[in-house]
């Protein structure tokens, strides 16, 4: 379980980091907190020729909150989100989801950008990005551009990033004060990867009817999913017990999980329904 050999660079500017990645024939890897990449190296699932450490790059560590929404720098750690009291109102769904990420020590090192780039199908941050229509800002040799979350996640551990690109920040749209939301996750042990989780939010009109419903799930496919069929059940309705039961059934019907070592497909299908139900009950309470 010793890491394979690699070269190491610790650039101090973003252009320098991009240059290092771009000149390594796609064989270099950026390292942020290393909490997913180092285990990948230990198992030799990744064997890059060069690691480009992002720790000295300026301006990637900030959490910015404005009328437009919440912007998280790529090097923001789970711990930073946990400690930022502004996020209790600026993005309570983010805060609730991030509370489930990993264990104490990993939370001190693991980063937002690292999780997005790693793209584990059961990870919370990609799930929140999908659920909230986030924009992911990246920079590469052809310059800076923005990738929509729905286009970013392309499969298990697979993203739209090209080998020379680095995530700079993720932008979550503004969160209105009256928004209803819930996040429910099931893992055998708190901090372990989710067996499944559901994130939901919706806004309410003057008559108490839901609109702008967003429902996202993780752990049940090769990438985080939005569930439009469940959102259709919610939009235009008052969220009561009948609607929640319909949404639960729609969620189970909308996913097509695989059997794996942790759970059968049937179990995960039922679990997703239950988690959507619980998240909606919390949202409507």
């Amino acid at each position, binding site marked *: 379980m010793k890491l394979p050999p690699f070269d190491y660079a610790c650039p101090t500017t973003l252009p320098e980091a991009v240059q290092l990645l771009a000149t390594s024939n796609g064989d270099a890897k950026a390292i942020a907190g290393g909490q997913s990449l180092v285990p990948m190296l230990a198992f030799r699932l990744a064997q890059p020729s060069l690691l480009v450490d992002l720790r000295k790059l300026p301006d990637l560590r900030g959490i910015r909150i404005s009328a437009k929404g919440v912007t998280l720098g790529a090097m923001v750690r789970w711990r930073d989100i946990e400690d930022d009291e502004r996020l209790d109102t600026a993005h309570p769904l983010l805060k609730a989801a991030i509370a489930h990420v990993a264990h104490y020590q*990993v939370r001190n090192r693991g980063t937002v950008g690292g999780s997005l780039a790693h793209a584990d199908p059961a990870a919370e941050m990609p799930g929140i990005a999908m659920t909230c229509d986030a924009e992911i800002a990246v920079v590469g040799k052809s310059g800076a551009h923005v990738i929509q979350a729905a286009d970013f996640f392309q499969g298990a551990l697979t993203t739209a990033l090209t080998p020379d690109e680095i995530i700079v920040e993720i932008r979550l749209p503004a969160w209105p004060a009256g928004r209803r939301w819930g996040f429910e996750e099931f893992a055998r042990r708190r901090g372990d990867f989710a067996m499944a989780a559901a994130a939901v939010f919706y806004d309410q009109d003057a008559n108490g009817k839901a609109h702008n419903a967003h429902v996202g799930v993780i752990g049940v496919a090769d990438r985080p999913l939005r569930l439009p069929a469940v959102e259709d059940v919610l939009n235009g309705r008052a969220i009561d017990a009948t609607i929640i039961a319909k949404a639960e059934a729609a969620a189970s019907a909308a996913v097509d999980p695989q059997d794996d070592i942790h759970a059968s497909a049937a179990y995960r299908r039922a679990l997703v329904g239950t988690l959507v139900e619980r998240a909606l009950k919390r949202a409507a309470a």
Partner: protein
Amino acid sequence: MEPRLTLADCLRHHLRLTGTHVGCEHGVCGACTVIVDGAAVRSCLMLAVQAEGAEVVTVEGLSNDADLTPLQKSFRRHHALQCGFCTPGMITTAHALLSEEPDCDAARVREVLSGNLCRCTGYIPIVEAVLDARAAYQPKGRDRSGDRA
């Protein structure tokens, strides 16, 4: 120093600080926990080169030659170890937690220690030992040694 050297192996093999234990080597067991710039981290998931300029405290750095620390005494008093393999990671993790959150309750201690595997004790004495050591981490003038969460 080779870039591929983890902080854990650097501490053990290069600096001969063998108090830091290495269990799973992929960030699951918590035995290799050390404190880097005040934050508990898994030293098997950090490259030694990434610790450039950082202050690293291992379990050796938490005790002194004269005596055990209050946290260590609490572990002894509560029989919070049997084989001892996980103990350095438990001590460093608990020290970081109590330094940051001296008023943490039992649920918080359990949540934090859930990232550290122990195959002997069943955790109950470890949780009790950590809770009992909270008094030593209180700001001066406060003593909650009688508290049970």
